[in-house]
């Protein structure tokens, strides 16, 4: 069994059956008193971040989690199917589980999938993806101003704010951490 001395960034522990990942931690020992480890931990099921203080030396239950790189294959009903390119094992995640990440999946996109006790609980897409614009108001010729923006719909139904010069058929670089437009990709 693990204890508080195992705590470091990314350490995954089980609290009341729920896996939590350590985001930040600090050893505190007030005056001549009891030592504690103050932590900020993220609920890996919901993404909620909470503060929790452990007595130094307190026993912790390690969460049985594993991160695997998988390739996106195709949609299937309300879910998306992924494949482990080494074992060819396939798993599916519901669109609800995927949340906004569903907009970053193109054929063959490699993602990191977090498994908890063998079941997928989350996905981390590549930091940047390139998506084609399928629909946007036509741009104005010669207008390269980036002060004003307009919405553009991409091939995955992602809607991003883009500069006025972007047109349907353009390929855009998107930051998946924020969902923001980064730049137009030269063809």
């Amino acid at each position, binding site marked *: 069994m693990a204890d508080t001395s195992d705590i470091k960034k990314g350490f995954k522990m089980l609290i009341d059956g729920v896996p939590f990942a350590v985001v930040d931690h600090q050893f505190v020992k007030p005056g001549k008193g*009891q030592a504690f480890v103050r932590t900020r931990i993220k609920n890996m099921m919901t993404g909620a971040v909470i503060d929790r203080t452990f007595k130094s030396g307190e026993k912790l239950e390690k969460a049985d989690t594993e991160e695997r790189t998988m390739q996106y294959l195709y949609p299937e009903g309300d879910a998306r199917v992924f494949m482990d390119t080494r074992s060819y094992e396939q798993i599916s995640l519901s669109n609800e589980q995927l949340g906004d990440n569903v907009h970053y999946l193109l054929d063959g996109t490699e993602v990191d999938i977090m498994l908890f006790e063998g079941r997928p609980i989350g996905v981390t897409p590549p930091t940047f993806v390139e998506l084609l614009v399928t629909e946007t108001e036509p741009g104005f010729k010669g207008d390269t101003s980036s002060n004003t923006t307009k919405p553009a719909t991409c091939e995955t139904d992602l809607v991003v704010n883009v500069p006025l010069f972007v047109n349907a058929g353009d390929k855009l670089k998107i930051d998946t951490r924020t969902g923001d437009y980064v730049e137009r990709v030269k063809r």
Partner: protein
Amino acid sequence: MAAPADPAVLQVLALRAVAHRSIRRFFEERDFVEVETPAIVPSPGLDVHLAAFEVRNPKGEPAGWLATSPEYQMKRLLSAGAERIFQLGRSYRADEHGRHHEREFTMLEWYRADSTSDDVIRDTEELVAFVANALTEKGELSPFSVPWQRLTVDEALQVHGDVALDAVIHDEERFFRVWAEEVQPRLGNERPVIVTDWPSSMASLARLKPNGMADRFEAFFRGVELCNGFGELTDAAEQRRRFERDQADRQAAGAPVYPIDERFLDDLERGMPESGGNALGVDRLLMLLLGADSIQAVMPFPEERL
């Protein structure tokens, strides 16, 4: 051929040298004598929440412990007639790792005979201003106005923890949990604060004040404990009772039970003047004055870089 210089290490060395020089100058100007006491001691300190490194001789036999603070030996020097002494040296604590903890760290400890904790609090305020000024010549910061804010433990708990001392005094774990989570992170955010009047159960080596509280103080700055000082306990019988209680508490907690330093008690018995003393973490002082976010950032060789 020499390797390229590492400016970060050189800067740490330079700043530490300035701080150490200014600490020595501060105490020499006030007629203190610099002393040295052993790193290997017969008793490393009995406070329940202290863990010490055990020392063994080449045959593998127990040979003492690394001192968690030089307190016993420095007080024996007071008994021997020394009046104003300071030591800038190493202390060692096992099981303490974090941004504000290292197993081996630089401790400044000083004692003045025929003095009270108020005198030592004044020393502390002046010393920090003095060191801050010395570092300012390097263009880093501005010192604080004195005197610093004063809070009792009870006031600190009520202001920052929304609980009175009476409500947590009999549940030590709850006290320290509230202190660690709610109180300490909010202490001294603008300028340092001195926290006084600790409960008698946490008196350690402090005497009791007429109000029944321990004559103990700590200074906090930006949520970090900077020092711990006492109006010193000089009653050998009471000191022995506290040591025996600490030993019983250690036994109950499953912690190693360290021996009582009998020579320290003998010297206390023979007589130690009414004194004030303080122990200040020099690495933390440097960290706070330089705006660093860890003591490791101001040490050339923290454990992680050894």
